[in-house]
């Protein structure tokens, strides 16, 4: 049976680390349960980093005029697969962002690039007036 864990945080950047720590802890719990030996740090760190990026985007591209809206992070533990979905009430956005040109020392634009590299699947969709970025990784 799948287990679902939900963390709801204020849309405030102060909570970014709580989001990424919880992602890391959930992933570690998942790999422990699966008895996956060494190399676990890579799996946990993938979730730690991907959730840090997605949460930061959810906060940064939110409409500050609207006050702080909540951001919801949902983890779903299946047999050999961990899924995380991050929901925000921001304006819709396109995932077709160009990769940064490294030679110009760009300071931004690495978030989705990291997420796509770290995760097995990444989907961005619109659900009930919210952006939902769903990421999965198989053990």
């Amino acid at each position, binding site marked *: 049976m799948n287990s679902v864990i939900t963390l709801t945080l204020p849309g405030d950047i102060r909570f970014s680390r709580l989001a990424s720590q919880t992602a890391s802890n959930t992933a570690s719990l998942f790999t422990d349960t699966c008895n996956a030996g060494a190399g676990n740090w890579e799996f946990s760190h993938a979730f730690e980093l991907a959730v840090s990026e997605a949460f930061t985007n959810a906060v940064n591209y939110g409409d500050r005029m609207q006050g702080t809206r909540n951001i919801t992070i949902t983890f779903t533990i299946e047999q050999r697969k961990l899924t995380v979905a991050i929901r925000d009430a921001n304006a819709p956005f396109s995932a077709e962002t160009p990769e*940064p040109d490294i030679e110009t020392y760009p300071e931004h634009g690495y978030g989705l690039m990291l997420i796509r590299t770290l995760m097995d699947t990444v989907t961005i969709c619109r659900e009930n007036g919210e952006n939902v970025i769903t990421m999965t990784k198989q053990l």
Partner: protein
Amino acid sequence: MTITETLSSGITIVELCGTIDASTAPELQRHQAISDPTQTIVIDLARLDFLDSSGLGAIIGAARRKEESGANMLLSCMNQKVRRVFDITGTVRLFHIFDETAAAIDYATTLRKSQ
């Protein structure tokens, strides 16, 4: 995040400890030795537990401004988690990265002499 500054052979070493993400990157950007474009520094990452792209962006911005005014930012002692962020983004090739802080200091001293 905590930032500790020490001086060794006339080179400033900035030790970053804890987490650099969007909640702490502004603090990094405000740090004097990091933001001063003319100062060559070594950043010791041995005790940095977690870095994300907001932290990476702050480091890259400061490094670019140093490069533009002829100074340098050298990085030492990255752990595997931190290194992975530089690797995936390809930004690893923008930096001189050292396994040991002592080697980074030596290199910084050489750079200064050759200027």
